[in-house]
């Protein structure tokens, strides 16, 4: 069941490569993602899935798999309308790349072997680079180059970190040395400490680059800003979650070795730094998509802080992972609609969005409220849980710092978003209108986030509880 889950998008991608018609390729995208979501649902419904040493499904991967699959389905649905609009540019590259991207993300989520995990994450970089270059202009090529080079180097460092951990096992006298997660977890107490620590730092830096934690985030505003909205949504919601999962795997290892506090401290520092950098950059940000990118940096910081604090905050952070992914989906897709309508993403041109494009404009506003943690949306719940965890552990300074930064972000982002959405209607130069196909997915995401804010389904709670138990110190 696990292998077909990875192969399904891959097969669909292959079919899309050979498919001669535009419509057929779009259809394949939807079918592939729907099938993926369906299989994910079936898998999650089973209480225990038999894995191999290579692939497996624990609570953490269930959670991330669910998020990724759901987000991708929404984006695939949206892509049909989007690609219809950009008919001239074709979808011969876009659709296969998207499907390979999905397959690689799935592989990364399911991987139980560090080598395989690295391989999958690197493949996501390669598959997403052509997606960022979709618009084929100077700016997008600059963004693609930065993304490709920085992420490749980051990922290379992560590989070095993985090797350091393997070498730590070798020095520690573990025999046979195996980079399989469970084997490493079992051998963790024997690992040579200096190598393990160095390995964790490199993995944090490497996958942190991919995730976009400050100060390794510089590719993020460029890539998110220039990529099509749906790609931005997939990167901000899906890929970052996958990269975060990779860091969590290393955290698991550090925990098992009894060095959890050290790793958590590192995460905490990077998290606070990310929030600060993002908050500063978001004030007076004139570009809506870059604004969202910095928001992504901010929320990656929040995830890192949550996991860094541990206990209740970990639960909050994992819940926030879900909320953030879905909200980012809604935000990026609605902003993509606005961008298409106004043919711009600059604040001085995007004005009066609610009056001009009522549905997309309203969704954008709602998404903004959700992502900044306003009730009654889901992120409010998760942010509240994280803060409760932070204050509960007596880390008042961290908690207060987070509150201040969240306030700064709210004001900074609000100034931009309200300027864009409020005001009288504008005459648009483009023939774009809000159609059902491109409005439904963001609407779905925003509604989902709203529901999560009002009512947390019991299976989800228990899944997150199980997942956060994996991240706690076991001894």
């Amino acid at each position: 069941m696990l292998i077909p889950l990875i192969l399904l998008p891959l097969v669909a991608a292959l079919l899309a490569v050979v498919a001669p018609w535009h419509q057929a390729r779009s259809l394949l995208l939807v079918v592939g993602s729907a099938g993926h979501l369906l299989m994910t649902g079936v898998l999650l419904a089973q209480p225990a899935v038999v894995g191999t040493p290579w692939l497996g499904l624990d609570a953490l991967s269930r959670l991330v798999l669910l998020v990724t699959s759901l987000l991708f389905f929404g984006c695939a649905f949206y892509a049909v309308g989007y690609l219809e609009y950009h008919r001239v540019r074709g979808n011969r590259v876009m659709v296969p790349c998207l499907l390979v991207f999905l397959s690689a993300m799935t592989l990364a989520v399911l991987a139980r072997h560090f080598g395989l995990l690295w391989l999958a994450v690197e493949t996501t970089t390669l598959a997403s680079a052509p997606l960022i270059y979709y618009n084929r202009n100077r700016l997008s090529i600059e963004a693609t180059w930065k993304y490709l080079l920085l992420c490749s180097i980051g990922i290379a460092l992560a590989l070095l970190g993985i090797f350091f951990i393997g070498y730590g096992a070798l020095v520690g006298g573990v025999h046979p040395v195996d980079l399989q997660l469970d084997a490493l977890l079992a051998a963790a107490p024997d690992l040579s400490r200096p190598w393990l620590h160095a390995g964790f730092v490199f993995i944090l830096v490497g996958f942190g680059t991919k995730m976009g934690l400050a100060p390794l985030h510089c590719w993020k505003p460029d890539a998110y800003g220039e990529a099509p909205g749906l790609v931005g949504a997939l990167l901000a919601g899906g890929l970052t979650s996958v990269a975060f999962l990779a860091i969590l795997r290393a955290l698991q290892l550090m925990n098992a070795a009894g060095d959890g506090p050290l790793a958590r401290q590192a995460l905490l520092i990077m998290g606070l730094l990310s929030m600060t950098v993002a908050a500063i950059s978001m004030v007076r940000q004139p570009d809506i998509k870059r604004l969202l990118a910095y928001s992504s940096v901010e929320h990656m910081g929040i995830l890192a802080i949550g996991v860094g604090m541990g206990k209740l905050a970990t639960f909050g952070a994992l819940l926030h992972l879900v909320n953030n992914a879905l909200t980012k989906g809604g935000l990026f897709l609605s902003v993509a609609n606005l961008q298409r309508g106004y043919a711009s993403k600059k604040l001085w041109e995007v004005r009066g969005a609610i009056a001009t494009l009522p549905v997309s404009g309203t969704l954008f506003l709602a998404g903004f409220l959700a992502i900044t943690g306003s009730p009654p949306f889901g992120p409010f719940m998760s942010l509240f849980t994280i803060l409760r965890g932070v204050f509960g552990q007596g880390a008042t300074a961290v908690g207060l710092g987070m509150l201040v930064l969240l306030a700064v972000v709210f004001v900074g982002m609000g100034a931009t978003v309200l300027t864009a959405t409020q005001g009288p209607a504008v005459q648009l130069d483009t023939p774009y209108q809000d159609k059902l196909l491109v409005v439904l997915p963001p609407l779905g995401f925003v509604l989902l986030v709203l529901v999560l804010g009002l009512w947390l389904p019991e299976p989800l709670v228990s899944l997150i509880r199980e997942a956060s138990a994996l991240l706690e110190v076991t001894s």
Partner: protein
Amino acid sequence: MSESLLANLLLLSVILINFFCLGSARLVACIRAIAVQGVVLALLPVAVHGLCAHSLVLGLGTLCFKGVLIPGLLLRAIREVRIRREMEPFVGFATTLFLGTLIAACAFLCADWLPLAAAHHEGLLVPVALTTIFSGFLLLMTRRKALTQVLGYLMLENGIFIFAVLLSEALPLMVEAGMLLDLLVGIFIMGIVINQIRREFSTISTEQLTALKE
């Protein structure tokens, strides 16, 4: 003894190639040097672990990918963009070379302080791996041309590969093959992007890529 001597000679030639790339302005020569480095790396697993199926297959794969295919892709890219030399790097060639040697000296002198496994204290694998990684970084940081930056990335990967030779029992062949394949595809995509950069900006200097900023 003869095996480790062979390995040491191979590793030394890796370092010499690093120095060459740091000090040379001719891109084609640099690409060829990286290709030679790939071939040397292909021999390394056999030299370190002796003749066994794993190291043979790994060596053969490395030879194909790092020695032939990737340099071939880069040479094709360079033909298309018609650039021969790295002019005016951010830091001069002699300076980078000096820094490279300094790094190598540090890596060699510091490697003894690292908590290495007893068997690796004498060997050159770890310091050479570190030197190659840092040389790659140096190349990435000090050069303007996109193509040279790709070379720096390749050198970085080569350094990691050398480190991986220490661990080859832990790395299944499939993963290693996947890594090589990923690298190839990565370079392929980078080559395409470089070509697009040239088409858009009529240069492959990454200095032009500064439109996106706050």
